[in-house]
C-alpha cells in the first residue's frame, strides 16, 4: 500500500462519508475525523484504519451492514491484528470508491456471495499488522531500543525489559512519519484476542432504539418523496398517461415518466400513494403479456427432453444407465422466489448540476455509483454514495432498479427525492430466484451403490440474463451445487439447458445452491431408500473424497442423535452441501399433521466455515438461514398469469412466523481452514433435510417446492 496515494484518496472518501453527516447517519457520526487525516495528529497508514492522538481507532468498513454483522466482524479482524482495544474502536461505513474499497477478489465494490469476511480477511489483517508494526517502530525509535524488543497489546506499545509503555495515541505523530511495511508479519491464530471469541454486535444499540438509519429513514432538507406506478407486466411501457386527477391530489408536486414507470412526487409518501392511485395509465404490456407459470413449466418439460450443455462428465453415465442395474428416475421442480427484504426497496438521490449524492441501502455501492453517474451525466467521482443500514439484502439490493428510480426522478424534478417501494411493488417487481425443472436418473448396482448419476437442469441463467456471462455458455449460477456434488460415483453427467422467458432473475440467498442442493440431496436420499439403506450411512459411504462434507455430516448426525428414538409421529431427515466457501449439514426433526401441515421442530446444523471470526454470529447466520430456507420450502412461490406476478403481500407470499419456527442448534466444526462464507451456506441443506424427513414419515417424496400439504393429507 502506498501511503501518499492512500491518504489523498482517503480524504476524498472522507468527504463523501461526510455528506452523511447532514442526515445524522449514526455510523458516519465519527466521519468528521476523516477530514483530519491530512493534518498532523492522525495516523492513517491506509484506507482501512486511522488512529488519533486520543488513541481512538477508526475502522472503515467496506462491507454493507445487511444483518450479517459486518460492522462488528470487520472491527474484530482489524482490532485483533492491530492489538487495539475493541471498545476504543469506532467503525464507519466506507463511501463508494472502488479504487480504495473494492473487494480484492472480485475487483468490485459490490457485496454478495457471502464474501465479506472470506475475501477481505487477509487484506484487512495485513493493513492492521502494517499499522501495528509502524506503531511498534515508532515506540522503538522513541526509546532507542531495537523494534524486536517492543511488544504491543491493548492499544499500547511496551518494552518489557524497562517497563516502558506508550499508548498508540502517543505514538501517532511518530508513526505517521514511517514507511508503510509491505509485508507485515501476521499473528498466529493462538495470539488472536478477538477472532474466534464471542463478541457482542456493535450495531445493536442503534437497532433496538430506533436510532439506526435505514435507507427508508433518510431525511434530506428539501426532500420530496415519490412512489412509482409500474407496468404490471415485465418489460411493459407507458402507452398513455393522464395525470390530471393525480396532480389534483393535495401534496402532489410532480408526475414524471421514468424508465420504470410513472413517478408521483409529493411532499410525503402518503400523498404520493394517493396521487399514484389517481393516475390513469394505459400500458403497452409488451411481449410477455400472455406468459403463465403453467406455460413455463410445460416448455421446461419439453426442453428437458433435448440435450443440454455438459457441465460435468465423468465416465459414461448414459452407458452405465443402460447396463442393467436398477434405475431410479425423478423430476424435481422449484418455483420463482422473491427476496422479500423486510425493508422494501428504496433510495434517495439528489441530482445537482455537476454532482449527485445518493443515500441508499445498497449491496453494490460501486455499481450504484457508476449507474447514478451515467444517468445524471456526471463523472463517477462526482457521485457520493452514503450506504445506510440495509433492512435485509439477500441479493436483492445489488440490483439497479431502485437506484435508477431515485436518480431519474431527482434529475427530472430538480430536488432531492426519496423513492419508496410499496410491499406490492417489491413482490411484483423483483429479481426472482429462477424457477427450474430438473430430471434425474441413476443406476444402482447389486449392493445399491450408485454407478451412474445423470442430471439435466432446465432454466434460465442469472449471469447470462445480466450480460455477465456469454449466451451459449454454461451459467455457473445455474449449475452450482449440482455439478459439484461431492458424491464419489464412477459415472456422472450433469447437463444444463438454458431457457429464459425474460422474467427478471437475480441472486437469492445461496443462489443456484438454493435449489440445486434441494434436488441433489433429495435424489441421493431417494437412492438410499431405493437401496434399502440408511440415508446418513449411504451418504457417508459416498463421501470418501470429501472429508469436509463428511465431517459436517457426522457432526450434524451426532448432534441430532441420528438413529436414536424420537417422539411418536416425528422423523429425521438429513442433507449436506457446500456453498460459498463453507460446508453445512442439517438434520431436521419433522412431523406432519393429519391435514398435511408440516411442522419442523428442531434443526441441527453443523457448519465448517473455516476460521469462525465471531462464533455467536456464525450461529445467528445458521439460525437465520434455516428460517429463510424453511419459509421457501413451506410457502415460497411466485407465480405468473398474463405476465403478472400473482402474489402481492404477506397474505399470499407468507413468511414463517415465530410460532412455526424450529429451534436451530449450530455446531461449529473447526477445520482451521481459511474463512468461508456464512450468509448463504446455512440455506441449501434445509429444504431437503425437511422433505427427506417427510418421506420417512409419509412415504411421499416431495419433488416440487413449496411443499404441497394436500399431498400429505391423511
Amino acid at each position: 500500500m502506498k501511503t501518499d496515494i492512500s491518504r489523498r484518496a482517503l480524504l476524498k472518501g472522507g468527504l463523501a462519508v461526510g455528506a452523511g453527516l447532514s442526515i445524522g447517519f449514526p455510523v458516519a457520526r465519527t466521519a468528521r475525523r476523516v477530514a483530519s487525516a491530512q493534518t498532523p495528529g492522525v495516523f492513517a497508514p491506509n484506507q482501512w484504519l486511522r488512529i488519533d492522538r486520543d488513541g481512538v481507532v477508526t475502522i472503515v468498513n467496506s462491507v454493507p451492514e445487511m444483518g450479517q454483522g459486518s460492522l462488528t466482524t470487520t472491527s474484530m479482524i482489524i482490532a485483533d491484528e492491530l492489538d487495539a482495544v475493541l471498545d476504543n474502536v469506532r467503525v464507519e461505513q466506507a463511501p463508494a470508491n472502488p479504487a480504495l474499497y473494492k473487494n480484492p477478489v472480485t475487483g468490485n465494490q459490490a457485496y454478495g456471495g457471502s464474501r465479506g469476511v472470506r475475501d477481505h480477511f487477509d487484506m484487512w489483517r495485513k493493513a492492521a499488522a502494517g499499522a501495528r508494526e509502524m506503531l511498534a517502530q515508532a515506540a522503538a525509535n522513541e526509546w532507542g531500543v531495537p523494534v524486536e524488543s517492543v511488544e504491543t497489546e491493548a492499544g499500547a506499545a511496551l518494552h518489557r525489559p524497562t517497563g516502558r509503555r506508550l499508548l498508540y495515541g502517543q505514538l501517532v505523530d511518530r508513526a505517521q512519519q514511517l514507511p508503510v511495511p509491505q509485508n507485515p508479519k501476521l499473528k498466529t491464530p493462538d495470539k488472536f484476542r478477538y477472532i474466534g471469541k464471542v463478541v457482542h454486535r456493535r450495531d445493536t444499540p442503534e437497532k433496538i432504539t430506533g436510532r439506526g438509519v435505514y435507507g427508508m429513514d433518510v431525511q434530506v432538507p428539501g426532500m420530496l418523496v415519490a412512489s412509482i406506478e409500474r407496468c404490471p407486466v415485465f418489460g411493459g411501457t407507458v402507452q398513455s398517461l393522464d395525470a390530471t386527477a393525480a396532480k389534483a391530489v393535495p401534496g402532489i408536486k410532480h408526475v414524471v415518466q421514468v424508465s420504470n414507470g410513472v413517478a408521483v412526487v409529493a411532499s410525503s409518501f402518503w400523498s404520493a400513494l394517493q396521487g399514484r392511485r389517481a393516475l390513469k395509465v394505459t400500458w403497452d404490456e409488451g411481449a410477455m403479456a400472455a406468459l403463465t407459470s403453467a406455460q413455463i413449466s410445460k416448455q421446461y418439460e419439453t426442453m428437458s427432453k433435448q440435450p443440454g450443455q455438459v457441465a460435468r462428465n465423468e465416465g459414461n453415465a448414459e452407458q452405465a444407465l443402460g447396463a442393467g442395474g436398477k434405475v431410479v428416475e425423478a423430476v424435481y421442480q422449484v418455483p420463482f422466489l422473491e427476496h422479500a427484504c423486510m425493508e422494501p426497496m428504496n433510495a434517495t438521490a439528489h441530482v445537482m448540476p455537476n454532482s449527485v449524492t445518493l443515500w441508499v441501502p445498497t449491496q453494490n455501492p460501486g455499481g450504484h455509483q457508476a449507474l447514478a453517474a451515467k444517468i445524471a451525466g456526471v463523472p463517477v467521482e462526482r457521485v457520493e454514495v452514503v450506504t445506510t443500514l440495509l433492512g435485509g439484502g439477500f441479493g436483492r439490493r445489488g440490483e439497479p432498479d431502485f437506484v435508477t428510480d431515485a436518480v431519474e426522478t431527482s434529475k427530472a424534478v430538480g430536488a432531492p427525492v426519496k423513492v419508496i417501494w410499496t410491499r406490492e411493488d417489491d413482490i411484483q417487481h423483483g429479481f426472482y430466484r429462477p424457477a427450474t425443472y430438473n430430471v434425474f436418473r441413476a443406476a444402482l448396482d447389486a449392493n445399491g451403490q450408485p454407478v451412474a448419476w445423470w442430471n439435466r437442469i432446465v432454466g434460465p441463467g442469472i449471469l447470462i440474463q445480466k450480460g455477465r456471462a456469454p449466451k451459449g455458455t454454461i451459467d455457473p449460477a445455474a449449475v452450482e451445487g449440482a455439478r459439484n456434488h461431492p458424491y464419489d460415483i464412477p459415472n456422472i453427467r450433469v447437463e444444463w439447458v438454458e431457457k429464459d422467458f425474460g422474467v427478471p432473475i437475480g441472486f437469492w440467498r445461496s443462489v443456484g445452491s438454493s435449489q440445486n442442493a434441494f434436488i441433489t440431496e433429495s435424489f441421493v436420499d431417494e437412492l438410499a431408500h431405493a437401496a434399502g439403506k440408511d440415508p446418513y450411512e449411504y451418504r457417508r459411504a459416498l463421501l470418501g473424497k470429501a472429508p469436509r462434507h463428511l465431517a459436517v455430516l457426522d457432526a450434524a448426525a451426532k448432534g441430532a442423535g441420528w438413529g436414536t428414538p424420537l417422539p411418536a409421529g416425528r422423523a429425521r431427515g438429513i442433507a449436506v452441501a457446500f456453498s460459498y466457501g463453507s460446508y453445512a449439514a442439517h438434520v431436521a426433526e419433522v412431523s406432519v399433521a393429519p391435514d398435511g401441515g408440516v411442522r419442523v421442530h428442531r434443526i441441527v446444523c453443523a457448519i465448517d466455515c473455516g476460521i469462525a471470526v465471531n462464533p455467536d454470529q456464525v450461529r445467528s447466520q445458521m439460525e437465520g438461514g434455516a428460517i429463510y430456507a424453511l419459509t421457501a420450502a413451506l410457502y415460497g412461490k411466485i407465480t405468473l398469469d398474463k405476465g403478472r406476478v400473482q402474489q402481492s403481500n404477506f397474505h399470499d407470499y407468507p413468511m414463517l412466523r415465530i410460532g412455526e419456527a424450529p429451534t436451530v442448534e449450530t455446531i461449529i466444526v473447526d477445520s482451521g481452514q481459511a474463512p468461508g462464507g456464512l450468509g448463504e451456506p446455512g440455506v441449501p441443506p434445509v429444504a431437503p433435510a425437511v422433505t427427506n424427513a417427510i418421506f420417512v414419515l409419509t412415504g411421499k417424496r416431495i419433488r416440487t417446492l413449496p411443499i404441497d400439504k394436500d399431498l400429505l393429507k391423511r
Partner: protein
Amino acid sequence: MITFTINGRRRQVDVPPEMPLLWVIRETLGLTGTKYGCGMALCGVCTVHLDGAPVRTCVTPVSAVAGKKVTTIEGLSDKGDHPVQRAWTEVDVPQCGFCQPGQIMSAAALLATKPSPTDADIDDAMSGNICRCGTYQRIRAAIHRAAALKRGGA
C-alpha cells in the same frame, strides 16, 4: 388538527384524518424508528403502543388516536434500557434490525400484561411480527430473559 400525546409530549398535527398514524409518526413528526413493511397490518414492523396496547400504525388512521397516548420505540425508555431492550442486547437478537423496533414494542406490551409469559403466550403475542432474518429463537429467549430482568428488578 388532531391532538395526541406521543412519547410524553402533546402534539398537534394538521393532516388528513384518514392518514395512517405510521406516516404521521415517520414523516410529519420525523420519528423514523417505526418502520413501514407492508401497509396491511401483516408484518408488524410499524407496531407502537396506543394507550399501552400494541397497534399496527400502517392501518390506524390518525383520527383514531386523537386524545390518546402513543409510545414509539424512541419513547420506550430514556436510555435504551427497558428490560426488553437490555435482554435484546444480551442475547444479540438483531441482525438487519429493521423489524426489531416492532418486535420490541410487541414484546414490551406482552410483558406489561403477562410478566411471566409462556412459549404459547409468546407465540400469540409475537405472531404478527415477521422477522425475515429469522431471529425468532433469540426473540423468544430474549423475552424470557426480559421477563426475568423485570421480575428480578435487575
